[in-house]
């Protein structure tokens, strides 16, 4: 018998003109690992929410069809009743942490579902072990990096030992070396439905692949059949790291526009980065990589001039533009074009051109909060590109971005490389290899090196 079954589900969010899911049918067998692929805004997250019972209970809207999980009809049973048998990890780890301490956070779900008291701490610590984060148990959640928080959220779900695990881009902020072992732990002995925009590691482990676009399941096939289909229809989803790139696209007459010399930085006594060196030259694109908590964002902010080094020297020549990894920071104005125009003294014509450059033509008058998550990412990029910086620094610009949009972003960076130096902080090795002339690695013990 299927563990989860969706029958002819059509669902629309309140006030939405189009259904988020349309006539979707699906079964998930016990122990099956299902990879869900598709463009941003295509319905992947809604599909996972339907399996968790959050659609329609939490979101409202119109719901037709039937969803059954572990024999429970989600229209009659609230998500809290499904919890334990079903566990979810959502896209933004920052928005799902309830408590202050990491250990208490992992214990929270166990307490709610009535795990015997003597088992709670044992299971919480075991789950933290599974994601290689036992050392975080005594830390405050607010002090953790995005990747560390993502591990804590995964541990919170794994601690429940669910029959069905629903993961919505659970590795978007994890360093590439951590992804494989964590996915192995997640997929061990349970059914998993996992949506990913860095599909490589998931495609290696899944039994089945769904491709969701426009609210419909376009493909539901075994892994082998799906790989053949993707190769023919969506080849960008099969991109793999193919050795060190590139690139002779920039000239030999290079000028250093950023020099960080033996810089260090600590947050309230907690060491973040350094001593570290970094040089960025006009016309080049550099990828900054390293494990979670290694100080990539801090080094990027030092290079952008947003932080002053506590020791060492930072020399920055020209105007810098910094794209934060949280697109929610670019939602200050009431209209998209006004938001972008903030950086150019309200020049709306320039702002609209920048919106067009990132594929947001026609959305000038939309409220930024009404944009989808993928559109918000692009709005944020436009808000930084419009100022035409001499030094462009992008912090995790591909988080939650589908492979086709990543290719567009790579092309955009390539097209504008001549006018600036670009630093891209990323956990995505394929994207780094696509865009970067060289890679700077902050892995501990590794020197800041040119790869």
């Amino acid at each position, binding site marked *: 018998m299927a563990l989860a079954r969706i029958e002819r589900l059509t669902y629309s969010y309140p006030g939405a003109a189009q259904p988020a899911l349309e006539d979707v049918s699906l079964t998930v067998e016990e122990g099956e690992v299902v990879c869900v692929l598709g463009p941003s805004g295509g319905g992947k997250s809604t599909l996972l929410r339907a399996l*968790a019972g*959050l659609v329609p*209970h*939490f979101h409202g809207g119109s719901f037709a069809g039937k969803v059954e999980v572990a024999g429970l009809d989600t229209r009659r049973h*609230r*998500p*809290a009743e499904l*919890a334990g048998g079903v*566990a*979810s990890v*959502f896209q*933004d780890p*920052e*928005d*799902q*942490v*309830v*408590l*202050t*301490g990491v250990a*208490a956070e992992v*214990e*929270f*779900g*166990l*307490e*709610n*579902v*009535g795990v015997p*008291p*003597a088992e*709670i*701490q044992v299971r919480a610590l075991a789950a933290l072990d599974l994601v290689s984060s036992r050392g975080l148990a005594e830390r405050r959640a*607010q002090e953790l990096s995005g990747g560390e928080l993502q591990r804590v959220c995964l541990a*919170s779900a794994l601690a*429940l030992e669910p029959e069905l695990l629903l993961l919505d881009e659970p590795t978007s902020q994890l360093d590439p070396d951590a992804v494989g072992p964590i996915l192995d732990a997640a997929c061990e002995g349970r059914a998993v439905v996992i949506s990913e925009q860095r599909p490589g590691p998931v495609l290696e482990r899944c039994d089945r692949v769904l491709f969701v676009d426009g609210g419909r399941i376009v493909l539901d096939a075994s892994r082998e059949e799906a790989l053949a289909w993707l190769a023919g229809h969506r080849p960008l989803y099969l991109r793999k790291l193919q050795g060190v790139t590139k690139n002779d696209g920039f000239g030999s007459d290079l000028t250093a526009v950023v020099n960080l010399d033996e810089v260090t930085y600590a947050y*309230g006594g907690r060491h973040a980065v350094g001593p570290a060196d970094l040089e960025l030259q006009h016309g080049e694109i550099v990828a900054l990589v390293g494990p979670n908590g290694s100080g990539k964002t801090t080094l990027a*902010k030092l290079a952008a001039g*947003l932080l002053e080094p506590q020791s060492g020297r930072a020399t920055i020549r020209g*105007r*810098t*533009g*910094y*794209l*934060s990894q*949280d697109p*929610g*920071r670019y*939602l*200050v104005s009431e209209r998209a074009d006004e938001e972008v125009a*903030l*950086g150019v003294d309200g020049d709306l014509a320039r702002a609209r051109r920048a919106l067009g450059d990132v594929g947001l033509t026609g959305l000038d008058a939309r409220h930024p*909060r009404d944009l989808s998550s993928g559109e918000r990412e692009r709005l*944020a990029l436009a*808000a*930084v590109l*419009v*100022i035409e*910086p001499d030094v462009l*620094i992008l912090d995790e610009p591909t988080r939650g971005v589908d492979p086709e949009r990543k290719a567009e972003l790579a092309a955009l960076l390539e097209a504008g490389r001549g006018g600036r130096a670009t630093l891209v902080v990323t956990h995505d090795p394929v994207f780094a290899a696509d865009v970067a002339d060289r890679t700077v690695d902050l892995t501990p013990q590794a020197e800041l090196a040119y790869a």
Partner: protein
Amino acid sequence: MSAVPGLCVLAALAAAALVADRTVTVAAIALGLLAACLQAPRRRRWPYLVGTVFSALFLFVLSPLLGSYGGLVIWDGPSVPVLGRLDVTDEELWTALYQALRLAAVGFAFAAYALLLDHDQLLQSAGKLRRSVLAVALATRLVPSLERDAAGFVEALRGRGVVVEGVRGRARLLSPLLAGSLERSLNLAESMEARGFGRPGRTSVPRPAWTPFERLTVAGAVAIFLGALLWL
């Protein structure tokens, strides 16, 4: 020391400040609580302290102007429509000082609760009050969340060459801060629902028994309140 005895002491001090008659007693309590707040990291404590001091000063300045009692007039101001004659008497000043100190003491007690206590421990000790305690803990986190969001907005604006200056510059961040906070609270509620919050039959991590010192602290808190009620 676990969080519950700490909370008892803070609650007793706040209550003592409200029931004590003497200004000097209230001032001593406020100063003691301020000293406790100063143990928290500077980066976390400033919104609470600035908010409390500003509120207390506002009360101290405004209430003598609006009051009309006392014999010795220290300052005789103009007559304003609706409010009437603005003047300040010695009795109004003393009363304003007393009220401002009471407000400051309560504000500092809340700040110490927010900054120094382990809210997770309080939640685990809450028993049947768990839902209410969690609601208070989440509400308490609003201030640091808003502060982090505000810093994030300012940083993102600086990252595109926009400098946020002055009251007007910061005021324009209020609306996005509020909208962001609402969005986050919805996401958090969704996460809590998915993790079984509110479902019957919950359990909790076994708590260690209170130490003699912690029992003594709770007794001390009761004594503080009674002492203030009876003698201060």
